[in-house]
């Protein structure tokens, strides 16, 4: 577009999940409290049916969700590439 103006949310085309070295995995301990969603810098966690869902297309694997989870319900595992 003229003047380098562009539309909202085009970033969804850019899958930052390829950056990931470590992968958060959600265990049965999760009760969907949403702390991980609040602290996720990458807008890749949603809470559905009292469970945290991680969108691996975008998750960069920073590990904040696992670190902040009160119930230790998220574990970080090395990404197999």
């Amino acid at each position: 577009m003229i003047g380098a103006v562009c539309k909202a949310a085009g970033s969804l085309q850019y899958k930052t999940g390829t950056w990931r070295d470590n992968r958060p995995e959600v265990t049965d301990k999760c009760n969907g409290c949403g702390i991980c969603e609040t602290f996720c810098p990458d807008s890749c966690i949603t809470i559905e049916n009292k469970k945290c869902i991680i969108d691996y297309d975008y998750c960069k694997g920073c590990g904040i969700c696992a670190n902040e989870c009160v119930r230790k319900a998220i574990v970080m595992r090395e990404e197999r590439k």
Partner: protein
Amino acid sequence: MSTISVIEGSMAVAQAVKACRPGVIAAYPISPQTHIVEFLSQFVADNEMDTKYVRVDAEFSAASAVYGSSATGVRSYTASSSQGLLLMSEVLYAMAGTRLPVVLTGVNRTVSAPITIQPDHQDTMALRDTGLIQLHVENSQEAYATHIQAFKLAEDHDILLPVMVCMDGWILTHSFEPVKLEDQEKVDEFLPPFVPKYRLDTKNPLTYGAYADDEVPEFRLMMHFAQERAKEKIEKIAREYEAKFGDYFGGLIDTYRCDDAEIVMVAMGSVIGTLKDAVDKLRKENIKVGVLKVRSYRPFPGEEILSAVKGAKMVAVLDKSLSVGQGGPLATDVKAALANKQAPPVLGCIAGMGGRDMSMVLIREIIEKSQKAITTGKIPDIEYIALKRQYLE
């Protein structure tokens, strides 16, 4: 009904801006731009304009505020001069790159150091490559008309670039002349309300000022193409103005007695009036001279200049600024326009820098130097007119 009043050049600009109904004005005072923004402030204070006047902390903020208001889809205006224009320069590059159709008055004044408030074109020359369209005016009436034309040009969806109307400080801003002020209704017909192509709007969220890695050459080129299109539009809008209001001051250029001229003097701004008087006097002495006014400095009217001067024996260009290490910028551009063409040679003259007066004596000196160059075939790289040699030591 239009009315004729004897007013200051600054008032002519303020009246034109008022007639254009900008939604936002932001400005910071600097001599000799001050009267323009004082008059506009008073119009707003008196409820004669439905305009938000943003009083800012620096020229940088003045340009930035109209950047924001224009992006929000509102007709916006600012004015500055000299150091102030230079302080704006970073914003003006971004404004042109973002294709925001702001109109600003560049009140021409030289640039420090040494500090002075004398007029010349050094300040707007420093903004040459910003992407701004630059229109120079000769007198207050043309300043009035050109501001109204400028909004129409800037906001045209084929153009969408900021337009700077350049006028010589003091000489034009502070002198009183009879100026014809047009009927508001007719101005409204000529310049309908601003319809932005897109804008900051929560109903349609857009991103302005994105980071570009690969796209830079194309965006810069698109500005250039818009300026190319502006060449036609500037002429067209000037003719539309003439049809509506009866006044025409030239399109990209204007010529005066150039048809059979052996020497054509090329210049911009208020000196044009003086040059026209001089031409009349010189013609009486059977010296065939003419004047070419460059009205649009950017886009630069190379083809128009070529076709106006091609029959002459010498083109004498008067520059009111100096690109240090090169010469007069206007002369450089004229030379480039005539290069590789069947065209007369160009004599670049630095004249009127730092507000130094142009008199009949000095114009005669330029003509004599041109005649000598024609006769001898020797053309100096640069001529300095009215140089006071005692200061060179």
